Structure formats: structure tokens, C-alpha cells
């Protein structure tokens, strides 16, 4: 069967075509994913093709390919030589770390070098498949269809322009298919064609393909009727339409890019880290200072400025720190390899576990993000602990704060607002703080503003601002529905509108207690806890965190000293604590809903996602139907797979024999119910020109009809069984 029907030159021509088609695959992938080094990947494709062209022994071929992949990864990603110790170390550590991640199904964290490795392996497989298609099946139709679909989809739905790519692929592909078909015909018919006759067959084909391609190019073509399926699907599902400019649903979690806020997200309970500490607190990661009316970006206020800290060294940052005696420790275990250190309020220093000598910490002065470094390179740190002392603010200080002597550098940086910010935002902010004296009270007023005025916390039904709409303006005046980003951004903008310096903070909320050991509690923080909030600068006091988001509680401590009157303190403490129970109330609501509507939740879910369910259902039914229709193809294979290793003995004989009958039936050899096994066996043996079925049937008949089952050579039976199964399924 596997004869060398292709000459090397012939095969080489086909491979060149395959190479060109694969290049068309690569171009959009490179363009759309921002991957570089296309020439190296093309070289890999060429290498694989050449190896398979010359039928290099597979061991040699595997070694060469693996060597190339290793060289590729090490050279591109680490800069070391592959032959150096560092290079090998890099390779080994990449492999072990990523295989670990794969085992945990933590796809997102897989690093680029490993992704490249997987990509190259994928290309490797693909080329193997193509080799099979060409040399054995002599048809690359599926490959061509896939390519056209792939390019067509990308051309329609992305900015990639595949006009010429498609023409090129169709031309080359059709010609290849035609030649392969011709080849197959010649082989099957066993005809010998001389050059002239061959030409007579080939020339019309090429002319035909060329002509139809040229005609197709010059035919008028309409624009895609369905340029982007997402809005259509959403509209069909009854979820879109009321907001313009939808984008896809994102997943909750800590993201780096905040320049385009808005849109719904879905929950993700991947654990990010666990913290052992006495208190529950927000974990700050970094701040943002420039609001663009679409989102947040980091300014270059300090150009390229970062500060290096050694472990245990006091860290200087902009936030106030509490007294020495209030110092506490929290141990952090990162389970998700983010490259930052989470900071509690009042951070003093970061300590290391014993095994992590040699780490340093680098703080970005612009965002106050702390990144662990090892040998001057960023390296995720799994275990560390933070020392912190929560600042306590004197109520009198807060009460007496005013903006008179504001540091101009602060004002410049933290009062920034986009020029096109609608006036009504400013007007609203002014009206909200009306009557409040101190800076703190003004900030409090704005914080409390979101708790009333019919704002709603929601992660699904969240709009994305349109082209000329301001993110905050849309939230404050149009939707009033959103999650932490909406609330916190709006509060920062409102604070800045009334002259209070403010910034936007990203990090994680406190998480959930999973273990208690005396005073120490273990908190589990998941991607669902990713959060954003507000820090406002209160003159004479410093930066204080605020929490405008409904349902979340902040953790700032305020000392109401004796100078405040009794009445006022009561009032204030009520005010301060009010944030705390909020979450509880919300939770309770949830619980009530859950218990009273226990059965309805499922129904509601169906109602809400009825299109999804419908589509899912149709897909399932379709799959089931397909499985059923194709059962004669796959069931025998499954049987064989399950039973190949099974021992054939007296106890399993009946089962195996009956299964054999079933498989034969699926393959079209149906025994009529009134047909005896013997006559059926004769039929089968006649068809397959063997005597295995007869042998087996004789033994089986003896087994079922005779008084004492005679000695049966089960090894031989097994042999016959396998022979028949193989013949039937091949």
C-alpha cells in the first residue's frame, strides 16, 4: 500500500505549494497576535517539509526538529546561547514550570516561550498531516477548505485583508487538487501516459482554473452581509440593542490594561493568592493617575523612575503608615504567577521566605506597583510576607482639612481631567459637596452619593461608552448600572472636579476566610476579588482610601478623639459604620433570593440564556444524531479498543462472540434472526475468504448448545476474533 508513488521532484513541487499556503496561514496569525520572527517559523515549516520530503528516519527528524525548537526558544526569549548552562537552565525551567501550569489547567499563565513551543509542535503535526494527505490519500481538499475558511473568517471579522491571499490559495490549491486527482486516476487505472497525453489532461485543467479565477476576480462582489457576528448574536439573544458599541464579555480578574473600561464580565474563581493575617484588608497593587474619558492610563510623571528595595528594608511610598506598635505581618502565597506584590494599607516592608534569597523589589514611582526581581530580572515570587501598620486618622485632622495650601505638584498630577469632560459631571460634583466644609466631608459626601440615587451594582448589564461618550458621564447620568470600575472612576473624576486630588487604585478586595488559627486567619483571594477603588489626598493627613462601590466596605480607621462632641461622634460613627453592613445586607438579599426561589434559579437561568440553551441543545442533539448515524464507524472501534486487551476465556466468550456479531452487523453482515450461526459463519467466511468465523462458531456452538463445553483453545479464538474484527472494521 505504502509505495513510493511520488518522485522526489514531484513531491517537492507539492511541498512548495504547501509551504506557500502555510505562509498564508502564518501571515494573519502573526499580524493579529503581534507575534514576531515570522522568518524563523517559516524556516521551521521549510525544515519540517524537507525532512519529510527526503523521508529522513523519524528519530533523526524528531531530534532535528526538537533541537531547532529549543534553539528558537532559548535564543529568542532568553538571549543566551542554547549550548550555555544558562540557556539549558532556561529551557528546563520553562518546560517544568509550564507543564506544571498545564497540569493545573491554568492556561492563562502559560508563558510565551512555551506557547511558541506548542505552536511549533502544532505546525509539526500539521505538516505530518499534510504529508499524509498528499502521499497516501492524494487529496488536500480538506486542507484547502480549512485554509479558505480560516482566511475568509479572518478577512471578514478582523482588520486583516485576505483578498489576495484567498485568490492565491484557491489558485494553487485547485491546481494541486487537480494534479493529485490525476495522479490518483493514473494509479488506480494503471494507465501509462506519455507526455503528450498527460498534457492533454493537464492543460485544460489549468486553463479552466485560471479562467474561473479571473472571472471571479472581475465579478462584482457585495460587502459582507454579516461583518461582525457578535452584535448579531447578542441581539438575537435579546441582550444587546439598548446600548451601542458593545464589545465581548470579559472575564473578571486583574488586568493590566485599563485604557478601555466598560462592558460586562463573567465570574472567575481562580485563586490568585492566599493571605494569612489578623485583619481583613484591601490589597493594593497599583494606582493610575490619568483619566482619558475612556479609561485609565499611567502617566510618565516621573520619567523611568523606579526605586529598588531589598527585603525587610522600609519602603517609602505616598501612603501614611500607622504607629510602630501596631505593626503586623501577613504571609502571602501567590497561586497565580502575577508579577506584583500585594500591598496592605500601611505597608512598611516586604520579607522573604528562607528559600527565596536574592530577591529584590522594584517599585514603579508612577504607579507604586512593586515587582519582585531576581538577578535584575522580573521574576514572580510565590511566597513572601508583608509588614504593615494600619494608619489611624485623627478625626479632628480630617475635620479640619482644607485645600488652601495644596502642593502644586499634587494638584498638577491628581487634578487632571480630560478636556472634553461634560460640564454636567462637574456640576453634579459641586452640587453633591454643597454645604460640606472639610475636604474629608466633601469626599465622604461623594462616596455616599453612590449609595443613594438609584445606582445599581451589576456585572452583566454594563454598557461600553460609544465613540464620543465619556465613561463617567455615561455611568452617572445614563446607565447608573455598573461595577467597581464605574463607581471608583466616577468618584475620582468627581473628586477632581471639586479640586480634591484623587487617584484610581487597583488591587484585590479582602477575600474569604478559609481557615482560622487563633488570631491568624487565612484569606483566599480569587479573581472575583479583583477590585478598584479610590484614594483621595486629604491635606495634612495624606492619601486615604475611599470605597464608592455599592456592596463593598472599606477599612480605614478613624480615631474620634475627645475633642469631638458626644452627639457628633455618634452620628459619625453611624456614618462610618454604615459602609460595613452594606455588604451584609446585600448578602442577605442574595440568601433570601436563593432560598425562596430555589427552584426558580434554574428556570431563570434558562430563561435568561434561552438562546444559549437552545443553541447548546441543538448542538447536543446534532452531535447525538451524528454519533448515531456514524455509529457503524465508531462503535466497532470502541468495542475493539475496549476488548483488544481483554482476555478471551470461558466467561467472556459469549460476550465477545455476540459483540463480534454486532460489529459484523454494523458493517452490513446482518444475521437474520432465523439464520443459524453456522450458516451465518459460512457466509462470513465465504466473504472474507477465511475459516476463522467457522472455527469460532463451532466452538461457540459447542459452548452454548452442548452439555459439557469441550476444550477450546482460547488463544486461537482470540486470534480469530481479532482477525475478524480487523477485517470487518478496516
Amino acid at each position, binding site marked *: 500500500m505504502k509505495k513510493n508513488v511520488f518522485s522526489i521532484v514531484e513531491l517537492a513541487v507539492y511541498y512548495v505549494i504547501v509551504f506557500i499556503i502555510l505562509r498564508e496561514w502564518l501571515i494573519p496569525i502573526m499580524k493579529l497576535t503581534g507575534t514576531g520572527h515570522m522568518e524563523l517559523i517559516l524556516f521551521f515549516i521549510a525544515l519540517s517539509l524537507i525532512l519529510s520530503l527526503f523521508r529522513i528516519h523519524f528519530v533523526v527528524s524528531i531530534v532535528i526538529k526538537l533541537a531547532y525548537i529549543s534553539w528558537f526558544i532559548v535564543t529568542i526569549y532568553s538571549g543566551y546561547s542554547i549550548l550555555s548552562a544558562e540557556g539549558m537552565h532556561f529551557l528546563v525551567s520553562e518546560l517544568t514550570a509550564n507543564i506544571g501550569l498545564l497540569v493545573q489547567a491554568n492556561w492563562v499563565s502559560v508563558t510565551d516561550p512555551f506557547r511558541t513551543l506548542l505552536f511549533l509542535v502544532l505546525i509539526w503535526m500539521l505538516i505530518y498531516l499534510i504529508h499524509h494527505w498528499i502521499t497516501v490519500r492524494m487529496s488536500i481538499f480538506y486542507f484547502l477548505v480549512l485554509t479558505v475558511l480560516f482566511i475568509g473568517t479572518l478577512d471578514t471579522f478582523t482588520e486583516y485583508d485576505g483578498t489576495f491571499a484567498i485568490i492565491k490559495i484557491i489558485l494553487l490549491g485547485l491546481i494541486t487538487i487537480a494534479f493529485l486527482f490525476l495522479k490518483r486516476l493514473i494509479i488506480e487505472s494503471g494507465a501509462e501516459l506519455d507526455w503528450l497525453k498527460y498534457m492533454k489532461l493537464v492543460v485544460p485543467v489549468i486553463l479552466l482554473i485560471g479562467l474561473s479565477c479571473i472571472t471571479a476576480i472581475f465579478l462584482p462582489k457585495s460587502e459582507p452581509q454579516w461583518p461582525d457576528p457578535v452584535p448579531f448574536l447578542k441581539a438575537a439573544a435579546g441582550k444587546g440593542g439598548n446600548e451601542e458599541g458593545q464589545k465581548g464579555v470579559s472575564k473578571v480578574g486583574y488586568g493590566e490594561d485599563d485604557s478601555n473600561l466598560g462592558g460586562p464580565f463573567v465570574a472567575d474563581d481562580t485563586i490568585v493568592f492566599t493571605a494569612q493575617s489578623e485583619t481583613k484588608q484591601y490589597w493594593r497593587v497599583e494606582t493610575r493617575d490619568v483619566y482619558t474619558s475612556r479609561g485609565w492610563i499611567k502617566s510618565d510623571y516621573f520619567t523611568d523612575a523606579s526605586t529598588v528595595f531589598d527585603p525587610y528594608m522600609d519602603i517609602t511610598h505616598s501612603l501614611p503608615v500607622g504607629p510602630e506598635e501596631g505593626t503586623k505581618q501577613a504571609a502571602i502565597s501567590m497561586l497565580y504567577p502575577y508579577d506584583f506584590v500585594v500591598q496592605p494599607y500601611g505597608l512598611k516592608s516586604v520579607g522573604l521566605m528562607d528559600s527565596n534569597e536574592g530577591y529584590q523589589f522594584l517599585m514603579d514611582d508612577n504607579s507604586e506597583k512593586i515587582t519582585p526581581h531576581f538577578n535584575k530580572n522580573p521574576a514572580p515570587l510565590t511566597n513572601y510576607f508583608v509588614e504593615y501598620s494600619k494608619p489611624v486618622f485623627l478625626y479632628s485632622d480630617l475635620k479640619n482639612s482644607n485645600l488652601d495650601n495644596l502642593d502644586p505638584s499634587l494638584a498638577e498630577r491628581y487634578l487632571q481631567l480630560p478636556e472634553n469632560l461634560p460640564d454636567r459631571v462637574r456640576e453634579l460634583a459641586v452640587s453633591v459637596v454643597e454645604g460640606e466644609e472639610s475636604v474629608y466631608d466633601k469626599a465622604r459626601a461623594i462616596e455616599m452619593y453612590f449609595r443613594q440615587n438609584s445606582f445599581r451594582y451589576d456585572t452583566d448589564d454594563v454598557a461600553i461608552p460609544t465613540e464620543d461618550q465619556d465613561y463617567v458621564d455615561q455611568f452617572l447620568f445614563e446607565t447608573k448600572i455598573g461595577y467597581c470600575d464605574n463607581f471608583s472612576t466616577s468618584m475620582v473624576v468627581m473628586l477632581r472636579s471639586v479640586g480634591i486630588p484623587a487617584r484610581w487604585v487597583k488591587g484585590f478586595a479582602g477575600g474569604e476566610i478559609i481557615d482560622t488559627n487563633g488570631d491568624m486567619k487565612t484569606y483566599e483571594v480569587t479573581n472575583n476579588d479583583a477590585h478598584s477603588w479610590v484614594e483621595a489626598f486629604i491635606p495634612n493627613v495624606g492619601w486615604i482610601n475611599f470605597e464608592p462601590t455599592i456592596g463593598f466596605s472599606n477599612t480605614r480607621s478613624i480615631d474620634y478623639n475627645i475633642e469631638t462632641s458626644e452627639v457628633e461622634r455618634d452620628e459619625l460613627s453611624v456614618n462610618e459604620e454604615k459602609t460595613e453592613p452594606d455588604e451584609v445586607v446585600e448578602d442577605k438579599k442574595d440568601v433570601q433570593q436563593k432560598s425562596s426561589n430555589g427552584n426558580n434559579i434554574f428556570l431563570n437561568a434558562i430563561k435568561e440564556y434561552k438562546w444559549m440553551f437552545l443553541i447548546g441543545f441543538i448542538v447536543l442533539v446534532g452531535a447525538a444524531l451524528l454519533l448515531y448515524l456514524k455509529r457503524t464507524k465508531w462503535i466497532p472501534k470502541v468495542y475493539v479498543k475496549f476488548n483488544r486487551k481483554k482476555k478471551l476465556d470461558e466467561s467472556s466468550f459469549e460476550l465477545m462472540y455476540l459483540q463480534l*456479531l454486532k460489529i459484523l452487523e454494523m458493517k452490513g453482515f446482518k444475521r437474520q*434472526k*432465523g*439464520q*443459524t450461526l453456522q450458516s451465518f459463519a459460512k457466509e462470513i467466511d465465504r466473504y472474507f475468504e477465511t475459516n476463522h468465523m467457522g472455527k469460532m462458531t463451532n466452538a461457540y456452538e459447542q459452548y*452454548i448448545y*452442548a*452439555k459439557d463445553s469441550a476444550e477450546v483453545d482460547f488463544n486461537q479464538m482470540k486470534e480469530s476474533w481479532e482477525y475478524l474484527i480487523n477485517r470487518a472494521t478496516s
Partner: protein
Amino acid sequence: MHKQIEAIIENIEKVMIGKREVAELSVVALLSGGHVLLEDVPGVGKTMMVKALAKSVGAEFKRIQFTPDLLPSDVIGVSIYNPKTLQFEFRPGPIMGNIILADEINRTSPKTQSALLESMEEASVTIDGKTLDIAKPFFVMATQNPIEYEGTYPLPEAQLDRFLLKIKMGYPNAQEEIEVLRRAERTQPIINLLPVISLDELLALQEEVKQVYVEDSVKSYIVQLARATRNVSEIYLGVSPRASIALMKASQAYAKMQDRDYVKPDDVQYLAPFVFGHRIILRPEARYEGITTEDILDRIITKSVIPIKRYAEQ
């Protein structure tokens, strides 16, 4: 194939050309202690068949030519007064042999028919209050002309039931008939035919046949077939349980012939038309439509379910 049985059949084949199946079926009946009804036109070798069989097993062969005026005593024998001894002496009739050819059985009166058939069933004759056992083996091969012929007394169904198998001889094909002619040129080979087994060996074989195992699933298959004949609209009278027994016994003998000590559905299936064929009475409507018992049995056999698993009590 069982060596001794093979020898018998081969022996018969020396004189009967192209009739192996008939020979086999006859031997099956002989081995299971049953009797055979050969139905066919005269002159196709019915008598030759029986003679050959009798000679092959070294049995005493007797022939009764049934005529309309034949009396029961002509079959079973008669007591005659012997003036010398002053006693009645029993003169055994032709029935008291081992292998009997009852030729053209349907040409005699029902009275004589029943005398024969009763002795067939009982393997004994009663005369003047004395019961005499017929020597074993006892094998009757009756021939009858097809019932449509003139001057016949059709056998009643109760009588037919006593025959294990009904076999049709059929004409030989051209080749075979040429061979028949070729042999008839010289002396009849039947004269030189020698026995291949002794009577004792035959009796032993008959005992062995009874030991052939019939699995319950196969029994249930037999019953399934028998019951099916009782539920077919074209059939006026289905087969009796005696027919089921007959089918089982015949199957045992057939299995033995294959040198097998258990019965397979194949045996049952093969023999069912021969065992059931003459025990089924079709409705006249069905007959007019040209439906034959063979057609119906064929249908029943196709529709019945062959047991392909070990028997499990239902």
C-alpha cells in the same frame, strides 16, 4: 460424520444415485426409531432405497404390497388351527420383520392401514389376546402415491402423525438418470450389496442417539417452531406435541450422524420440514391459493429466533 453411519449411507449410494439426502433422512429415522413415509410417483426408486438400507444393516427385509383388498391379518399375521397339534398356531405376518417396505400404503382400506400403523406405534402386535413384540430394530418405510391420485384412501392425520419423517424422492437429474441407465444395463447392483454394520451395532447406535444432548435453549427453539404452526392463519391444524418430540428425536439422530453429541438449531431447522410437513393441514383457501406447507414452514423457520446465548430460564 459418524463413521458407521457414513458407511451405511455410502453403501446405499452404491445403488441409489443422487439420493444422498433421502438416504441420510432414512437413516435418521432408522436411528431414532421412527418410521418414514416416502411420497412420490412410482418408479423413482423407493423400493430400491428400502432394500438397500435393509441390506446395509443386515436386517430382515419384508415387503407388503398394499392393495384395496388387503386385510389386517395379511399384515400382522394369523392364527391357524393345526390339526396335528390340535392347536392354533400363529403365522406371523410380514410386519414381524426388521425393515418393512409398506408399498402404496394409501391404496388399502383404512382398516388395514390402521392395523399397520398401530403396530408401528406400539412396536408390537396383538392377536387372539396375545401381545407379541416385534423384533428390534423395527423400521417401516411406507410409500404412498401423491394423494391426488385415483384410487387412494388418504391417511387420516392421526395416522400420519405416526411417521417420523415424510420424504419426497423426486426425479433424478439428467446426469443421474444416465448413470441409472448405465447401471441398469448390467445386473442390478443391489444383489451384490453387503451389510456394513450388524443389527447389534445398529441397536447400539440407536441407544447412543438417545444420549445426544439437547440443550434447553434448543428445546425451546423446537417448541417455538411447533407453536408457530398452531398460530398461522393458513394452517387449519398445527402440529402436535408428538411432533415436537419427533423433531427432537430426529434432530438427535441427525446430530449423531454428524458425529456430534449435542443438537444444534441447524439440525432442528434442517429437519423441521420433514418432520412437520405431513402433520400440518392447510386450510382449503390456502391450498386454492397455491400455498404449500413447505412455503409456510419456510416462513416460520425464517421468523423464529435462533437461540444464540446459553439458555436462561424465562
